């Protein structure tokens, strides 16, 4: 059975050109980038070219990018590397666990943390951050795009606000990078986390942007790679792959954003036409991530039924246990438990066609109707 993948927010398939590039590098280069000899030099050049390329694509200096193992690791390095006992951190209550749990950990170590709640549209309000700032506030960390809702926060305004108060600003931009243009040097963002597998690059590699002049305390120790912040021999193949993937994504983003927006609108139109009872959650969403409550079916049931029919969607964010669990973001936007249990995330990407989207809507309708008839039959 052919599987149609509509869970692009969880991860993306590897771009074919990226794979070719990675194969080329892994079959020809193996030297340790720290070695003095030619083998080392070749590998070093691959890593540094990737850094230069990514810096150009993100509009920052190459000295401002460090390579990490993933988005989660970038978040950890940023938060743990900045916060000291007695400091105050402002973050949001619907961050990815990589920020949320790190903040929880910081609290245990004498750091005061304020968790701002998103409003019912799934957005962090500037005034809430403003009201939480105190003399001890060292850092504000707010995600760029929420991974479950697809809502885009007013990051530039928040960054300006923090700059005005002399506070550092970090953003987990894992769901944004590769989808939108960003010129970091024109923003007041101080630190930004990204992950390659969200933009058709390989898994197990990410990066952290650290504005020049900001010093982080290392949390891992070793051979001093990546400014001592992420020691360990560089994963040259994946770093190269990430750089190529970002380049491809940025080149193709306008064309694809347009297509994804079309998918989204024809999908929603079709759902209406099929008289499906749904609510689209969140406002100021980036195209491609749809958080939808289907009022007539439990999320677990629709996710499984669609999977059986060859359509992959998500019952929330992907979690490591692989089972459905109560979503943090939905709770934080005060969605009632019943609606939350009927909410799914559908995310569209480059792998799809309009035909797929139409078939997906028909399948959803079929699954919901079948369940409805079954319920009616059971009652009788």
């Amino acid at each position, binding site marked *: 059975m052919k599987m149609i993948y509509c869970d692009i927010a969880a991860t993306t398939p590897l771009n074919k050109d990226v794979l070719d590039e990675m194969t080329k590098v892994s079959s020809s280069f193996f030297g340790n980038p720290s070695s003095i000899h030619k083998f080392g030099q070749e590998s070093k050049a691959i890593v540094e070219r990737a850094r230069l390329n990514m810096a150009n694509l993100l509009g920052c200096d190459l000295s401002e990018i460090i390579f990490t193992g993933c988005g989660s690791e970038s978040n950890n390095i940023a938060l743990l590397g900045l916060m000291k006992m007695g400091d105050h951190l402002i973050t949001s209550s619907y961050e990815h666990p990589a920020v949320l749990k790190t903040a929880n950990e910081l609290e245990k170590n004498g750091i005061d943390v304020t968790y701002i709640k998103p409003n019912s549209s799934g957005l962090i309000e500037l005034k809430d951050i403003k009201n939480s700032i105190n003399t001890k506030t060292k850092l504000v960390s707010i995600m760029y795009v929420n991974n479950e809702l697809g809502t885009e926060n007013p990051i530039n305004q928040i960054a300006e606000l923090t700059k005005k108060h002399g506070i550092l600003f970090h953003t987990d931009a894992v769901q944004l990078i590769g989808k939108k243009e960003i010129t970091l040097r024109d923003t007041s963002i101080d630190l930004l986390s990204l992950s390659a597998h969200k933009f058709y690059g390989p898994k197990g590699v990410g990066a952290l942007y650290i504005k020049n002049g900001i010093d982080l305390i290392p949390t891992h120790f070793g051979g001093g790679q990546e400014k001592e912040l992420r020691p360990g021999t560089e994963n040259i193949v994946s770093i190269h792959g990430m750089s190529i993937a970002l380049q491809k994504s940025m080149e193709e983003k306008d064309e694809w954003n347009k297509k994804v927006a079309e998918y989204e609108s024809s999908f929603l139109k079709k759902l209406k036409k099929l008289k499906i009872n749904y609510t689209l959650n969140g406002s100021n969403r980036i195209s491609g991530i749809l958080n939808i409550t289907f009022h007539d079916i439990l999320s*677990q*049931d629709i996710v*499984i*039924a669609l*999977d*059986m029919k060859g359509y992959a969607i998500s019952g929330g964010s992907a979690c490591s*246990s*692989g*089972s*459905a*669990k109560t979503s943090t973001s939905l709770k934080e936007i005060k969605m009632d438990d019943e609606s939350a249990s009927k909410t799914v995330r559908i995310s569209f990407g480059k792998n799809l066609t309009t035909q797929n989207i139409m078939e997906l809507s028909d399948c959803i309708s079929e699954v919901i109707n079948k*369940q409805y008839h*079954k319920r009616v039959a059971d009652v009788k």
Partner: protein
Amino acid sequence: MLNKNRVLVAMSGGVDSSVAITKLNEMGYETIGITLKLWETIDPETKIKKNSHCNSTEAINGAKMICDRLGVHHYTINEIDSFKKYVVDDFTNEYLKGRTPNPCVKCNSYVKWGNLIEQANKFDAYYIATGHYARIEKSSNKTMIKKGVDTLKDQSYMLWHINKDLIDRTLLPIGDLKKEEVRQYAKEKNLETSNIPDSQDLCFVMDGDYRNFLNRFMPEKMEKIEGGEIKSEDGSVVGTHSGFTNYTIGQRKGLGLSNPEPRYVKKINPISNTITVAKKASMFSGVCIAKEINWLVDTPKFPLKAFTKIRYNSLGSMALIEKIDESYLVTFEESQLAITPGQSIVFYNEETLLGGGIIEDSNE
């Protein structure tokens, strides 16, 4: 219309359920692996959540590997609420009443042959299957549960409480095999789970000690349980106990008594907060009362003669079962040692599982 070729296979991720799904797949059934997430514990120190033994991360991953090699779907379905309601709450309440429950019995009837059947309906699957050591036999329009071929592993005792109508929708593909054969088959097929050790303890009691579990699960209730008197059968006080929930009928060790002839817990009375001990000779009884009877065959005529087991690993004895109002009086041909209220009493006609009930009160 339910699909008679489709089977939902309950997968703990151990070798038994792995072989079960592999065999069904070989037989041509369209299989779907389901791991029921039943319980998680929170480490009091690190606050890290841990899945219980029967749905550990390794178990879920094991099930996923097996399903992947078969090219079939696998889903993890959360039934924690149901497991708590029907299994764990029942388990703790029984201990508070001074009784000794069989949580596996309730898990089978409410969760596996309850929630899993509901899932099967959603998947349009007629059948559910498990890796239990028991057999399903069809003869002349009747479907019955029989003992597993491996007499040491036979788990039919734990199945008496399931809904009779669901036997026809059940497949037990490893009941014809002995444990060694199951392992051998898993090895031959190179199943990733072939070397996973057998699960022994209650799946939700992580350290194997139910007393620690009770203390952690309901500290408020357990704090109220105080020490009390240990009495002999003549009513004289012979010692003190540390709280009646710490004892089970038939227990010999840990009583803190020094008698030339060992003493056993004969009765637990939570109301008077006393424990009665007796010599082994006095621990035998020829009768008991059973309630909550469930028949897996057409309701028999009474009095009924049946081979009867009073605990999972008891040898059993022939017994006469008489119905008295809503209760059943069971009279054993051979006296039974330490008949324990709360335990399942299970009836057989040779290999066939007839039904069972819960032991109410041993004869005084």
